[in-house]
């Protein structure tokens, strides 16, 4: 069975750790049996969205097991809208990514609302960095954008309880739990709050975080075989329209 990682990056980070080009991602994927990875460019997240997205287009052209998120800077919606179209036209980008920390905009701001409009217009899923109680605003933001589907990256971070209830109240919100601090019980809490297993996704934050951290969270969540099948790949394949997922890391059944 495949594994699809819906939250990863390519490129360097401004910390004391080894990162690199797409080959770095592939080495880590092979180590843990991750077949496909959906990535954004670290450069696009922390520095220059347009330049980082352009560099990622080159990487994706060489790495068929990587699919892209085009980073949208909420401070520059018109520029990002055009850049998002450029990326999607390649056929190698399947979604958009918006961070909150680096551009300094949170849900509830005018700029973030405009950025949501850009992604809704493009009609692709949005991976949103979520970290704080502003996640409670997401159901309302989605209510006025009927086609938009949002993955709550990090599942709210330290606001994982609020994120769970937000996701439970809106069937176009998905939870993805990658994070360095692996608070116990987050997955169980979300499911008890009413988030169905069909809206739980597997993400790692590679290559910033080693994938085994998120794999350990999945192990401790105690999913059944059928639930693992959903969380590790099937939900992602359906959300992103990936169809039949090749599994180069393990033999065919």
């Amino acid at each position, binding site marked *: 069975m495949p594994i699809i990682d819906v939250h990863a990056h390519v490129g360097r980070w401004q910390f004391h750790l080894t990162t690199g080009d797409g080959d770095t991602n592939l080495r880590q994927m092979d180590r843990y049996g991750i077949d496909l990875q959906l990535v954004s460019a670290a450069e696009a997240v922390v520095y220059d969205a347009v330049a980082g997205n352009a560099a990622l287009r080159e990487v994706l052209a060489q790495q068929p097991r990587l699919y892209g998120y085009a980073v949208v800077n909420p401070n520059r919606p018109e520029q990002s809208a055009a850049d998002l179209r450029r990326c999607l036209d390649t056929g190698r980008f399947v979604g958009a990514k918006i961070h909150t920390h680096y551009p300094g905009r949170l849900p509830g701001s005018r700029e973030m609302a405009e950025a949501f409009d850009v992604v809704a217009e493009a009609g692709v899923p949005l991976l949103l960095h979520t970290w704080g109680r502003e996640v409670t605003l997401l159901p309302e933001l989605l209510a006025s954008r009927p086609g938009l589907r949002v993955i709550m990256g990090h599942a709210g971070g330290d606001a994982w*309880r609020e994120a769970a209830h937000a996701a439970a109240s809106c069937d176009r919100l998905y939870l993805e739990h990658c994070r*360095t*601090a692996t608070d116990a*019980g987050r997955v169980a809490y979300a499911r008890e709050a009413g988030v169905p297993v069909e809206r739980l996704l597997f993400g790692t934050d590679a290559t910033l975080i*080693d994938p085994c*951290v998120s*794999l*350990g969270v999945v192990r401790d969540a105690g999913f059944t*075989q059928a639930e693992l099948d959903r969380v590790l790949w099937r939900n992602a394949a359906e959300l992103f329209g990936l169809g039949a997922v090749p599994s180069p890391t393990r033999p065919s059944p």
Partner: protein
Amino acid sequence: MSAYDWLNAYEWLHPTPAEHVGWDVDVLYGSWPRHHIDVGFAEVRARLARSPVAGALALSTRGPLFDDEAGNAETLRDLADCPELLPVGTVDVRDAMTAEARLDELTAAGVRFLRLFTVEQVAEPGFPGYRRVVSLALDRGMVLLHDGDPRRFGPPLAGRGADVIFLDLHAYLLADFLLLAQEEPGFRATTRMLSGPDSIERVVDSVGPRHLVFGSRTPFMDISPQTLRLRYADISDDDRAAIATKNVEELLV
């Protein structure tokens, strides 16, 4: 593919001997009002029994959150018949006038480890109460289990021959910790938040495995992400055993 083969396709799903941990230095039990559920002593023991962690240094949350004297007594009483658990004491740095009596009680009981909760007790490195507690503990040869940012608490502890285990070292702060550890043989950190793909390897390569120990923060954090990170670390088996077990055993003498 049969169900048996299907599950075995995910190697990370099942612990191996490489995940064995002799001593986990970061275990608590009891009430914590900020969390949605409490995990008592029996359940913590059960979680450890289901994990690859064989032994732990533990204490009741009563000490740091409510009453240090009563909490220490509770820890000593609860752990008296638990060979897999060793007691950790604590002193409330907000009431450092009583610190000497608390530390005398702990040393009389044979307690070797003192855990400081500067985050919960809102103590800064320069606060008189904090400085008093640290001086008294170091005078008694105690090992400090220290929360907070090592960049802030490390410098005032340097040059004193202190044995300190930093419990909250994040991968983002690794370079600063390595600079401290180069000068301080007694400075150690837990692997809990060293989530970068090569964070553990960088510590081993630059200052040696003696500067790392295992700490999971059970029951508030998942265990498997931490044991998997150790299992898959690109280090020697001897280095892995030192981090998982032997470094703590040296501190027990």
